[in-house]
C-alpha cells in the first residue's frame, strides 16, 4: 500500500507525526498522474512546481510546529471553474482557453489557508453543462473503473482523479447533480452542501440560484473534513449565509439508531432505472434499517416535474450568466466588422454545442411572450417541489434514493441525444431546486464491476446528519475501499 492509498485524514496524521512528508505525498500523486492520466485524462493542467512549492511550505510549517490543520500538506485538485491566481481557469471552454484568473476564489483561498497543495485543474463539461465530461471543449475524461465508460459529469475530472488516487480529494460544483452523479459513477463520496453553505465567489457561474461548491473524496470522514475547510461565511457572496458550521467530524460517528429515513415512492417508479441499481439501493436501505434506522415511505409528488423545471430554470439563468463572454473584457475575441458581429462570432466560436443549446433554450424561455409560460411557470413548480420536501421532512430526518438511475454508461452512448443525457440527473435535480444538502456514497458494484451510488438528502443546514448516515453505512461496508482496476498499485 503506497501513500496514495491513504485517506486525506490518514495522510494528514502521518504528515503530522513526520512519518511522511507533504513533498513525498505530492511526488506520489505526480507519479500516478504520469502513469495513469494519459489514459484517464482527468487533468486539464498539472501544476507540478506550484504543488511542490506548497508541499515544501507545508513541511516547513510542520517542522516548526505550526501545522495549519488536519489537512495541512494533503494534495488536492480543483474542478477547472475555481479561479486560481496565476493558473489557467478554462471552465472546460474554448472561450476561456487562455484565461488566467487575477485572483483566487474564496474556496481556493480557504484551501490554501488550510495548507493543501493544489495539484492541478480538473476536466469538466463546458461551463458545468453536462453529465459525462464529453462536453469538455478539450477531451472527455474516462472512468478509471472502465476506460470505455464515462466518469459522469460535470465534475467528472474531479471524480476520476479521486477514484484513480491521483489526488486525495477535490472540489467540484453541483448545479443539478454535478458532484453527486460523478461520485456515484466512480465509487467516491461527493457532497452538495445546502445552498449558501459554501461561498461561490471566484467560481465560474452556471445557474446562480442552483450552483453550490462541495467536496469530493474517497470516504465520509474526508468529506466532513474538506467541507469543514470551505463551509465559511463570505461577505463577498451575497448568497453565502452567516450560518455557523458545526464540528462535522465530531458528529459523524453517532450512528443511525432511532433516525427516520424517508423512501420516496415516486423515485422507485421513475423510468430508466437499472434493476441492479434498484437492488443495491434496496439492500443499502435494509442495512440502515438493521443498524436501527426506521424506514418511512414518503411522497414527493412533484418529483416528476423536476426535470422539466430544471431544464427551464438552469438554462434561463445560464443564458443570463454567459452573456458576459462577449470578447470585450477577457476570454476569446473573434473580430468582426462591427461590435455585434464581434459578439456573434466570438460566442459562436467560443461555445460548444450543448452550451449554445442551453443559451438558446434559456433565451427563448425568458423572451417576450414566453416568460410567463416557461420561466415563471417553472419557478412556481419549483415552489411545489420545495414544499414536497418541507412536508416530507416533517416526518423524516433524511431522504434516501439512488444517486443515478444507472451505473457508468459508455462514452458516446448518450451524447447525441440531449434528453437521454438529461435523464441522468433525475434523482439529483430536486435537491438543487429545493436548496438542500445531498450526498452520494458508494453502496454496491454491478456485475460488470461498476460502482453504484446511494443518495442521502437532508434538511437545510443539516449536512452533519447526512454525513452521519453515510458514515454509519460506510463503517459496515467496504465499497469505499475498493479501488478501480486501473488504480491497483
Amino acid at each position, binding site marked *: 500500500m503506497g501513500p496514495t492509498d491513504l485517506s486525506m485524514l490518514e495522510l494528514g496524521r502521518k504528515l503530522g507525526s513526520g512519518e511522511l512528508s507533504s513533498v513525498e505525498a505530492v511526488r506520489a500523486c505526480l507519479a500516478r498522474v504520469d502513469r495513469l492520466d494519459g489514459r484517464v485524462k482527468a487533468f486539464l493542467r498539472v501544476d507540478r512546481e506550484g504543488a511542490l512549492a506548497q508541499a515544501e511550505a507545508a513541511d516547513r510549517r510542520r517542522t516548526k510546529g505550526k501545522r495549519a490543520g488536519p489537512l495541512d500538506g494533503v494534495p488536492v485538485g480543483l474542478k477547472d471553474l475555481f479561479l486560481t491566481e496565476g493558473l489557467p481557469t478554462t471552465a472546460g471552454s474554448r472561450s476561456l482557453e487562455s*484565461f488566467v484568473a487575477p485572483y483566487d476564489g474564496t474556496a481556493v483561498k480557504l484551501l490554501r489557508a488550510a495548507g493543501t497543495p493544489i495539484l492541478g485543474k480538473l476536466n469538466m463539461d463546458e461551463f458545468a453543462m453536462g453529465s459525462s465530461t464529453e462536453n469538455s471543449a478539450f477531451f472527455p475524461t474516462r472512468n478509471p473503473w472502465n476506460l470505455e465508460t464515462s466518469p459522469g459529469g460535470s465534475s467528472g475530472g474531479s471524480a476520476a482523479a479521486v477514484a484513480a488516487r491521483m489526488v486525495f480529494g477535490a472540489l467540484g460544483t453541483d448545479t443539478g447533480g454535478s458532484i453527486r452523479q460523478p461520485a456515484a459513477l466512480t465509487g467516491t463520496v461527493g457532497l452538495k452542501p445546502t445552498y449558501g453553505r459554501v461561498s461561490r465567489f471566484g467560481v465560474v457561474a452556471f445557474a446562480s440560484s442552483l450552483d453550490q461548491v462541495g467536496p469530493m473524496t474517497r470516504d465520509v470522514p474526508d468529506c466532513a473534513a474538506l467541507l469543514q475547510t470551505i463551509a465559511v461565511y463570505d461577505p463577498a457572496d451575497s448568497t453565502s449565509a452567516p450560518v455557523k458550521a458545526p464540528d462535522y467530524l465530531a458528529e459523524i460517528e453517532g450512528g443511525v439508531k432511532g433516525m427516520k429515513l424517508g423512501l420516496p415512492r415516486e423515485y422507485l417508479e421513475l423510468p430508466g432505472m437499472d434493476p441492479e441499481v434498484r437492488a443495491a439501493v434496496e439492500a443499502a436501505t435494509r442495512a440502515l434499517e438493521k443498524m436501527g434506522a426506521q424506514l418511512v415511505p414518503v411522497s414527493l409528488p412533484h418529483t416528476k416535474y423536476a426535470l422539466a*423545471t430544471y*431544464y427551464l430554470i438552469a438554462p434561463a439563468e445560464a443564458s443570463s450568466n454567459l452573456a458576459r463572454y462577449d470578447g470585450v473584457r477577457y476570454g476569446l475575441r473573434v473580430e468582426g466588422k462591427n461590435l455585434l458581429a464581434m459578439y456573434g462570432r466570438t*460566442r459562436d466560436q467560443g461555445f460548444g454545442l450543448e452550451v*449554445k443549446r442551453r443559451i*438558446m433554450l434559456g*433565451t427563448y424561455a425568458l423572451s417576450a411572450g414566453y416568460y410567463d409560460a416557461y420561466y415563471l*411557470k417553472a419557478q412556481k413548480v419549483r415552489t*411545489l417541489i420545495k414544499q414536497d420536501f418541507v412536508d416530507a421532512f416533517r416526518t423524516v430526518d433524511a431522504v434516501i434514493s439512488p444517486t443515478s438511475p444507472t451505473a457508468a454508461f459508455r462514452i458516446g452512448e448518450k451524447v447525441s441525444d440531449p434528453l437521454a443525457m438529461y435523464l441522468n440527473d433525475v434523482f439529483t435535480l430536486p435537491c438543487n431546486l429545493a436548496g438542500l444538502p445531498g450526498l452520494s456514497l458508494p453502496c454496491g458494484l454491478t456485475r460488470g464491476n461498476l460502482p453504484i451510488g446511494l443518495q442521502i438528502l437532508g434538511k437545510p443546514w443539516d449536512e452533519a446528519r447526512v454525513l452521519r448516515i453515510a458514515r454509519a453505512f460506510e463503517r459496515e461496508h467496504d465499497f469505499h475501499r475498493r479501488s478501480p482496476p486501473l488504480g491497483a498499485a
Partner: protein
Amino acid sequence: MSLTLEEVRHVASLARLSLSAEEETLMRTQLSAILDAVAELSQVDTSAVEPTSHAAGEVAPWRPDEVRPSFPPEKALGNAPAEVGTSFAVPRIIE
C-alpha cells in the same frame, strides 16, 4: 411544439450567437423536442403558487459599507483581448 427557422434565428440574435445554417437546423429540431418535453409543466395547477427565484430562504445578510481598495486596473486588464490606456478597446460603434 415546433419552432420555425425564423424563431430560431430570432432567439439566436437575442443571444448574440451567429449560428451556422447547420446549427440552426439542429437547434430547431432539438429545441422543439425539449420544449415538447417541458410542456408537461402546463398540467400543474400553479394558480395559487408564488414563484421561487432562489433556494436561499433567509434574507440576504447586511455588511458594513466599508471603503476598501478596488481591484487594480492593471490586474483587471490582464486578460483584455485589446486595451487602450486603462480601458478595454472595442470596435468603433459611433462614426
